[in-house]
């Protein structure tokens, strides 16, 4: 990963000094050993702070929405697909961007790292194969595959689909069998079981909206949960309102979600809300043969109309 970091710094300094971009949006080292912080470098000097490793869990496309300047941005495979969607949806122009692509071998699950630690984590090192967790009086090595974020285990695009320069050689894509095993489990449940399952899943949700705010798709000027005229949803911790929020958000992102996992990584309560978004991904793949953000000239599945669309349901 140090090679990625070095290359990102090198590219960033170059494009900043050549005036190709006004800023570079990347990550800097966090104050906690297992975290990183989204960061905007405005000068060559600041570009020295940029890093990339398995702790870079946020999707930086979230930070370029509606920007007017020229932006360098660090993206993983999934993020690059969100960039495609952003460009299609006029949230940013391709010409404004200098895309630094990161061929990605996956992110480390924060909870998994903390569970392995025997005290304060001072650093987490990542050589694409092995993760070394170092801390106050301990050091642990684990296979990266054992601590991957769950979305990274079913990743369909580790290499960026769109970029100006790569931070390292392309990596092999994963061979996945049973991509939607988790969704299948839920589909098999009876309606009652499913209802209970969802209730349990969301029982600790505080509606902090970290999932929404970490999501590059959620850029509505006013989210439906914040709307007061009309008020669609109550604002309390009422179970139905909490469910409504998560369901509607998932549906709103249907056909656009790249399963980047930022929502789950952001959740302070470890809620697995990707059960909802992944169902929409599965449906779009199975019913429309459509994966979000793979090509610049292909609009999201639910955002296009063809004269020969199956239309029996309208009768």
């Amino acid at each position, binding site marked *: 990963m140090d090679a990625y970091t070095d290359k990102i710094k090198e590219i960033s300094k170059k494009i900043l000094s050549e005036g190709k971009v006004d800023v570079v949006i990347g990550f800097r080292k966090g104050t906690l050993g297992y975290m990183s912080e989204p960061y905007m470098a405005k000068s060559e000097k600041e570009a020295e702070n940029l890093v990339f490793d398995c702790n870079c869990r*946020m999707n930086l496309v979230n930070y370029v929405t509606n920007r007017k300047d020229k932006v360098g941005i660090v993206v993983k495979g999934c993020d690059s697909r969100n960039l495609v969607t952003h460009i299609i949806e006029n949230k940013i122009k391709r010409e404004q961007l200098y895309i630094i692509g990161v061929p990605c071998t996956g992110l480390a699950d924060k909870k998994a790292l903390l569970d392995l630690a025997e005290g304060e984590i001072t650093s987490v090192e990542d050589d694409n194969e092995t993760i070394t967790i170092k801390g106050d009086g301990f050091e642990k090595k684990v296979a990266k595959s054992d601590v991957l974020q769950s979305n990274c285990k079913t990743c369909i695009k580790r290499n960026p689909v769109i970029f100006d320069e790569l931070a390292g050689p392309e990596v092999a894509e994963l061979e996945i069998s049973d991509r939607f095993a988790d969704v299948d489990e839920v589909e098999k449940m009876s309606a009652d079981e499913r209802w209970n399952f969802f209730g349990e899943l969301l029982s600790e949700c505080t509606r*902090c909206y*970290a999932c929404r705010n970490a999501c590059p798709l959620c850029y509505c000027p006013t989210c439906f949960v914040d709307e007061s005229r009309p008020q669609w949803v*109550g604002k309390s911790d009422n179970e139905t309102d909490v469910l409504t929020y998560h369901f509607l958000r998932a549906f709103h992102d249907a056909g656009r979600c790249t399963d980047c996992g930022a929502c789950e990584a*952001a*959740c*302070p309560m470890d809620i697995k809300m990707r059960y909802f978004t992944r169902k929409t991904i599965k449906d779009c793949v199975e019913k429309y043969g459509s994966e979000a953000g793979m090509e610049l000239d292909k609009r999201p599945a639910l955002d296009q109309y063809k004269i020969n669309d199956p239309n029996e349901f309208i009768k």
Partner: protein
Amino acid sequence: MKMISIKKSDWAGAMEKVQKSYRLAGPVKEKKGHTFRELKDGETPDLEYSETRMSVKEVVLPQSEVMFSYSLDENKEGHHILEEVPFDETPRAAVGIRPYDAKAVEILKKNFMTEDYKDPYFERRYENLTLVGMAENNPSPVNFSTSCGTGPFDESCLDIILADAGDSYIGKALTEKGEKFAAAAGFAEGDSGVEAKLAELKEQAEGKIKSKVSFDKIEKMTILDLYEAPFWEEAAFACINCGTCTYACPTCWCFDIQDEVKGKDGVRMRNWDTCMSEVYSVHTTGHDPRHEAWQRTRNRFMHKLKYYLDKYEDGIMCVGCGRCVSQCPVNIDIRKVCQQMNDYEPSK
């Protein structure tokens, strides 16, 4: 002051006994770790925990609370007139809270029980509540409570303090409320060795805290100097303006008031709110005094570390529990921001 010593094997029995006269809230082990919540009858507060994501705030300021009920049915007498809702007066106890979280309750009290107004919802919960603290022998790496005028063994805001001494919990009843609770639980009286043991454990625990903040210079700067400091945009760049820090914070007190109606029956209720959200401060005209996301982040830190400090002249609005530090999705760290503020030198 009564010393307490209770064998761990007697703990569950004592809690069962005390539940005859108290409703309890406390740490409970659930699938994802310990949660601090209202206990059901027969549930025992589990004192063998390291941290709870949510604090005791929920007990004195629930996330959602009905304030009034009313009817919109014009055929009913008293329609459109708000009625108070009943309140369960049974004494309550928060058992096993961290001592610095108790300090947070005192901070909340400054906001909700003022000379001019008493918030009746907070007041009745507060007065009804006994705070039974569980000192922390092994503070987490993000704990900086000793910098915040409190600490893992701070007795100042508790009714009872307990600490883990191996096979038993030892401690003290610190107030009249605490003595009542100890009597109701049938806590065995501790011997004279308890005080010394507590002092020893306290020194060890405080010694483990490496994380520190200072605000001595913040105190001396003007509000405008700090407000206009050049570092805010950068410090707040990563912030996604979610409510994580504000909800996890035991001292963040902001709330929203909402009317909810089902058929002809309505309630006015209040819900936690977060200054991170745009709807928090936006005017009806669409004008928002804190329109930019970073301005909202600045407001939160300024409130905790400067406005509160100046308004009450009693330290910062933070007890150093570290919840916001470990829960923030983008690793914005109040310790770092506080340092940045304290180190700032306004150019004159």
